[in-house]
């Protein structure tokens, strides 16, 4: 049984070691703010290692911050080497970024945490943890924690039941109602490790696909378009839904597509280290892949 205190201690030791031995330039983990809320932390000095915490409040997927660490700090230098603390869901995103050549494997030191679940802002277990198939990160350089007391849960797609029960017309009405509340803040896109286009297809100056209006037609295209751009790539970390200030059930959109992709291609993003992204694979004649 993994003890939170022990894990926190081990995590701090690991961070201290990595920074003092200059194995990495930065450790990305979690800290507690003055209000008692857990938040992402960026450590550059081994003396800061004791800021790190670990526990069920560590909900953020830190992998997305690797996109900010691609460029060197100064011209002529190498890009930074970064250590990142990951939960199983977060670690799946790493496999995507490695396969898509966004981050070099050698530049990332992965501190994998065995995870028994995180909680939402209300203190209740996050929905995604109830269907977590991993519990142990799928990629890591060091693994902290013992095999979890909670077994991986089977995923029965029961979260999609509410959508499945609707007719097409009802689904459209449901989603238009959700998008009406959307304020097009792009938090869902910004938090997502899979969304890293320097200029988003839906935020182009030439308004090629949608214009900048914060109206239902544009938001509709943005959300559906983003879901399709993540097809075969979304690792179901549910961060998009967590960060949405208007409570849009975005994981429903992504999960619907995850299930379709699994049914069609037997593929579930991020579970394994892949050489290429799923959509780039050509399979033998007659096979979906």
């Amino acid at each position, binding site marked *: 049984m993994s003890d939170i205190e022990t894990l926190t201690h081990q995590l701090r030791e690991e961070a201290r070691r990595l920074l003092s031995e200059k194995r990495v330039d930065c450790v990305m983990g979690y800290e507690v703010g003055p209000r008692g809320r857990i938040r992402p932390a960026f450590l550059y000095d081994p003396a800061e290692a004791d800021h790190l915490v670990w526990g069920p409040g560590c909900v953020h997927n830190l992998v997305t911050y690797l996109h*900010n660490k691609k460029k060197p700090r100064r011209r002529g230098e190498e890009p930074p080497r970064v250590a990142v603390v990951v939960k199983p869901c977060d670690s799946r995103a790493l496999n995507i970024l490695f396969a898509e050549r966004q981050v070099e494997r050698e530049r990332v030191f992965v501190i994998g945490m065995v995870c028994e679940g995180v909680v939402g802002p209300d203190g209740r277990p996050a929905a995604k943890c109830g269907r977590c198939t991993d519990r142990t990160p799928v990629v890591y350089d060091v693994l902290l924690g013992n095999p979890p007391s909670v077994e991986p849960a089977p995923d029965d797609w029961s979260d999609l039941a509410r959508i499945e029960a609707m007719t097409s017309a009802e689904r459209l009405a449901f989603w238009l109602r959700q998008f009406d*509340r959307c304020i097009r803040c792009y938090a869902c896109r910004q938090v997502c490790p899979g969304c890293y286009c320097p200029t988003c297809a839906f935020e182009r100056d030439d308004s090629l696909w949608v214009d900048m209006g914060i109206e239902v037609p544009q938001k509709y295209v943005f959300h559906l378009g983003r879901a399709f751009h993540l097809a075969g790539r979304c690792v179901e970390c549910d961060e998009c839904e*967590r960060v949405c200030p208007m409570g849009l059930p975005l994981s429903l959109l992504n999960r619907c597509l995850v299930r379709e992709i699994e049914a069609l291609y037997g593929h579930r993003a991020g579970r394994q280290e892949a050489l290429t992204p799923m959509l780039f694979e050509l399979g033998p004649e007659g096979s979906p892949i």
Partner: protein
Amino acid sequence: MRFTTLDRLKAWLDHLAQEADLIAPREVDGHVLYRRVASADEVLLEYERPELSAKEFLFPATEVILRVEQKGKDVALEEVLPERQQVLFGVRPCDAHGLAVIDALFLHQDPPDRYYQHHRERTVLVGVACERMWEGCFCVSIGGGPTDATHLDVLVRPGTEGGFFLQPVTPKGVAVLEGLEVAEPRGEPRPVEEYNPPVPVAASEKWRALFEEHRFWMRHGERCLSCRICTYVCPACRCFDLTDRVVDVRSGVTRIERLRAWDACTSPNYRRVAGGHNPRPTNWERLRNRFMCKFCYYPDDFGPRGCVGCGRCIVSCPVDIDITEVMQDVARR
């Protein structure tokens, strides 16, 4: 000061909903938002802080500012200025304060923004006092308060024995109350139950002095996702973007709309110029600009600080970036 009962207040609201566009706090799928209402029944009278500010009714998130019709080589332009009167009911004092902050630039700096000016003229602000300070609120520290009537046309305060006290503040406020049936006052305006601890507000020079301290801003800003939540929920933020869109091409006539829409200095490409250079390439530099604008640039340029202490950004930031934490850090130096 006037007094009325709940029934008479609702009758007045129903009357307003007929005469004008009535905007009030409404429950929308579990969220409290200022929205257009058709009757008093939809109006929430017990609520905390609507999740978005009231600015969208004077500075819409998306606004068509020009309609253009092009036929061959001929172009006709038309400004779009809706005529209907608008009553915003249930405006929290911080939201009204936010409009006063935007006024300092949009109205009082020449040339005035024609659209905002028009919306201001056609809008009456009927505020409802807060009976306590909500999570994140620090309006008192910025010169506002839960019962501050300063920037409203009318301030409504729920009474200790039921009913509502109404204080007209401006001639517009007097006029909008004309349709209200008053009653014999009973009780008093409910006092504010709880105040949040004060937050120090450092002078502009102190912020300016910290501009070059990168580690300071990285500590607060490196976890910023560069989304736009804080900017969009803020009552005082006013940056916007402009573009055209072709609405229709029919019978040789092209109909075009020139839009303006909310924008945010936190977003990654905000300052990217056509040639590709971006002077604020990192998330923490953009966040620094956001805070500097609120506590240094805006007051230095236009008078008021660009923050009213509503606390929305604090509760809605997904990575716990807390403006009061930054303010305390600045004041401590």
